[in-house]
């Protein structure tokens, strides 16, 4: 049975909105603040988070048996406003798990600190290090982080996640799938109507689609800074497609084994999820 249920989502979605004069456990940030991170908010946003977390735990359990969360240290790398940590923290199974959040966005961290009990937050910058101790962590996940990183920060953060994980620990990261190139082309050619400013920005990304496909199929990371954002330089942050071969080669070199590669194309358009285990 899935760890997180629709009831969890409902309970969290119905918590009051965080106002300036009331800062209580599990209060939500305002709609506009949530939307800044992944485009969704409240139930939609929690739903996406629960799907990702359930998927990750399912795959880990398939690989190494039932997870005993007691004493486990779990890091949400790029925690944003903390929707995933809120979900985890509200589960009794994780009452004795230690939860950590890292993000570069100071306001998001502040909201997380005020509203998420018993979780520890630290600020990261565009490049490593993070503040956490080596060999300390059992599971680190990064949702919609490596989907935005150029090759140099991607590799440096992969190495950093390897540093903080204990041997045998897991990392689950998401990347954009191959058909993201076509997705952008569809907006450009008008075959798919843009529904928001992000779609309009994507129309300008990965313009030479033939070359992008070639590079992707050759195992290269394919990066475009047309969308930009996140207050980070265009050499670091944009949209990134990383093929399975890239993850296997480079993360493998850093002591990871690729455990699972989950790719889902249209109509769902989910980010591809790579589960890796630190083996040495």
């Amino acid at each position, binding site marked *: 049975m899935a760890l997180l249920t629709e009831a969890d989502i409902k309970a969290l979605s119905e918590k009051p909105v965080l106002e300036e004069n009331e800062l*209580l456990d599990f209060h939500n940030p305002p709609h506009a603040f949530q939307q800044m991170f992944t485009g969704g908010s409240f139930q939609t946003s929690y739903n996406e988070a629960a799907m990702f977390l359930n998927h990750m735990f399912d795959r880990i359990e398939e690989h190494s048996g039932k997870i005993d969360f007691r004493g486990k240290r779990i890091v949400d790398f790029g925690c944003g406003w903390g929707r995933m940590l809120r979900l985890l923290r509200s589960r009794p199974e994780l009452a004795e798990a230690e939860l950590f959040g890292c993000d570069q966005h100071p306001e998001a961290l502040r909201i997380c*600190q005020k509203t998420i*009990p*018993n979780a*520890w937050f630290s*600020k990261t910058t565009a490049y490593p290090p993070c*503040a956490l*101790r*080596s060999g300390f962590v059992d599971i680190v996940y990064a949702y919609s982080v490596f989907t935005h990183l150029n090759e140099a920060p991607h590799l440096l953060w992969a190495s950093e996640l390897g540093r903080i994980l204990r041997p045998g620990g897991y990392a689950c990261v998401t990347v954009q799938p191959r058909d993201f190139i076509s997705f952008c082309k569809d907006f450009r050619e008008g075959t798919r109507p843009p529904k928001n400013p992000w779609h309009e920005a994507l129309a300008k990304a990965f313009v030479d689609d033939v070359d992008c496909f070639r590079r992707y199929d050759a195992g290269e990371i394919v990066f475009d800074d047309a969308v930009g954002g996140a207050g980070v330089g265009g050499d670091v942050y944009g949209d990134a497609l990383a093929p399975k071969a890239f993850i296997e080669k480079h993360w493998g070199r850093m002591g990871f084994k690729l455990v699972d590669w989950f790719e889902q194309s249209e109509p769902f358009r989910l980010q591809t999820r790579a589960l890796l285990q630190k083996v040495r």
Partner: protein
Amino acid sequence: MPLLTEEDVKSLATKPVINETDSFDFYNPSQIFQEGFTGVSFETAYLEALRFLNHVFEKIEADSGPYNFKGKRIVDFGSGWGRMLRLLRTRRELDETFLYGCEQHAGALRLCEKTVPRVCFSQTSSFPPCDLRSGFIDLVYAYSVFSHLNAPPHLAWAQEIHRILKPGGYTCVTVQRRAFISLCREYRDGSKSMQNNWHKLLSGAFLDEADCLKRYDAGELVFDYSTGGAGLTNDVYGDAIVPKAFFEKHWTRLGFRLVDFFEPPSNIHAQARVLLQKLP
């Protein structure tokens, strides 16, 4: 000129008291909550913190020249309700300084997270490790922490502070001084009047005064668990009187240089302040 002024103290001491439904930056915990930590509250508590912090920075500057706060990483080890971090966070000189708080008291951490902005907090337990990465920190201070630790946790935490400090980084810790043994006897024989419950507990501590003094003068850490508290077992937490010779022997062996051992002359019962540097 000292870094922190009485104006800083006044400004913080007059912030409103926090309650369950509002949590603003720099709101204070209630008087009773503050007193649970050092017996004092508001202006008195901030003043005590100010004196300690100013002393730390003055002694560091005397040892190695003007202290440039930009980019420095400072840890308040045993941050309690955060009075010292509040003071530091309000200073413009430290706008670009990374502040960290470590504490074992869950309620104090939660309160700090709600009311102290731009500080990363994490929970520690009786023995190391803490969450922070090795060689990461420029300064660790621990006010009224080692004054309570028995020799095994004292030495374990000394080693842990060494681990997280950068080479050349400083640590300042406080311990009870020799006169504390006689103070307890004075409460016991009535030559000093007891003014609170803590004094009453102290009257039952360090009963064999002559033996305690002998051991102190021989360079031993002298520990008594009569006052107990802090939710820790009595082999860990009590009152600890630590001579200079103990630091010279044990901290030096760990790779520290003793920079300064200061016993405030104005108050014979004030804790001794010990400044050490991790050897480069």
